């Protein structure tokens, strides 16, 4: 929140415009790690030419935060796994991590997919949960950026989830069996082509909804906070600041909750869709 205020002030001062573009500029990806007033890190830009197609695979701000999240999640989980070697009873951070894993195992994976599939799907779903949660929370730190408020990131996660869902369904039911199972039993023959198209479309709408939901939720909170802080500079009066800051603080706390809820929902729905792909009996 401290840096948001500064960014708002700076951008408004520089652009002298009251349009909303500065908000978007703050949220979208960039090649700059902004640590004002301590300095600015310009990330290297390069392109990859592959079969005549130019790919911009430069390391952007969101890539840095993805890696940071991956590092945090990795060390946290490996630390937890190591702690079992020392003693059977987890302590401190390991205890918290284990509680979350137990929750994912007992409340998400077991009811939606089934007890015997836990070893095959918990690693994916658990990693998804911790990764998204860490990305969401990193965006709430000063100087942090929310990688999950970038549609490319959520699209990638949804794509992985989509692949996992189809893979799970096809492995259990066979490729042909899986597509046959998409159509519910007892549908009249003349409706079969339409139903097939609808169900196949449904396969794509599920991860699409996952992508949009995570992206929109993580973007919205930041937009609202920035807009509330921006109100002070747009109205050019300090008297609005208590209201702005109180509301921004409230939204911030709400975002803390949203960060957790969205990580949970993404995991929960992925698990549910995997379960639906595996248990096709309608």
């Amino acid at each position, binding site marked *: 929140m401290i840096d948001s205020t500064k960014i708002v002030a700076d951008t408004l001062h520089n652009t002298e415009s009251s349009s909303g*573009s500065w908000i978007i500029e703050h949220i979208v*990806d960039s090649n700059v790690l902004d640590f004002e007033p301590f300095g600015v890190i310009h990330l290297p830009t390069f392109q990859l030419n592959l079969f005549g197609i130019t790919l*911009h695979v430069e390391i952007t701000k969101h890539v840095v935060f993805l890696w940071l999240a*991956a590092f945090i999640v990795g060390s946290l989980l*490996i630390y*937890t*796994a190591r702690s079992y070697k020392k003693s059977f009873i987890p302590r401190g951070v390991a205890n918290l991590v284990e509680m979350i894993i137990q929750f994912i195992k007992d409340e998400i994976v077991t009811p939606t997919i089934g007890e015997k599939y836990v070893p095959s799907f918990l690693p994916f779903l658990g990693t998804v949960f911790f990764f998204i949660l860490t990305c969401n929370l990193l965006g709430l730190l000063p100087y942090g950026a929310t990688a999950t408020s970038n549609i*490319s*990131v959520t699209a990638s996660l949804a794509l992985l989830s989509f692949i996992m869902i189809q893979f799970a369904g096809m492995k259990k039911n066979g490729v042909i069996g899986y597509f046959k199972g998409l159509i519910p039993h007892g549908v009249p023959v003349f409706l079969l082509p339409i139903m097939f198209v609808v169900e196949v479309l449904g396969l794509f709408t599920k991860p699409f909804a996952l992508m949009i939901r995570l992206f929109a939720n993580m973007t919205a909170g930041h937009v609202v906070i920035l807009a509330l802080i921006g109100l002070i500079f747009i109205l050019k009066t300090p008297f609005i600041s208590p209201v702005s800051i109180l509301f921004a603080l409230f939204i911030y706390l709400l975002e803390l909750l949203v960060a957790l809820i969205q990580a949970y929902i993404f995991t929960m729905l992925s698990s549910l869709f995997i379960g639906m792909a595996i248990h096709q009996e309608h």
Partner: protein
Amino acid sequence: MSFNFGLINFLLLYGGGAKGGLLDVNPGLIFWTIVTFIILLIILKKTAWQPILTALKEREESIRSALEKAERARKEADEIFEKNQKSLAEAEEQVRKIINEGKEYANKLRNEIISRANEEAQKMIDNAKQEIETKKQEALLELKEIVADLSIQAAEKILEESLDREKHKKLIEKLIQNLPKG
């Protein structure tokens, strides 16, 4: 609906800035996200998830077995308690019987002792009575002799040899024998 259109307009308008808009998909970022996530998943699957899952399962097993053991121990304790209760009741019963027997025996013994004591006492009293009787007879005999002697002496003194001593004695003895017994 107008709100929705407004939102989309907002996203498209301000999302289409020079540096890339809100809804712009960046293939590079998709690439990095997928690579990062898959590497993270592969690393964690071996180093974290398997040990954690094994540990959770092991602990679940150990908790279950501990609970079962506790349940078994509780049952055993219950059985032992019941057995103890039963044997305690038996012991109590036995103790009561022993006490009763003892009481009975003591009663019998007391009665016997009392009756024997009574008998003995009676015997002693009888003996004493008999002794007294004999002593009395002896005393009487002695008394008679003394009286006879005294009478003789008295008579002698009175009569001053008027009679033959032997004759006299016989006479008085006869007299005493004729005295009423008392």
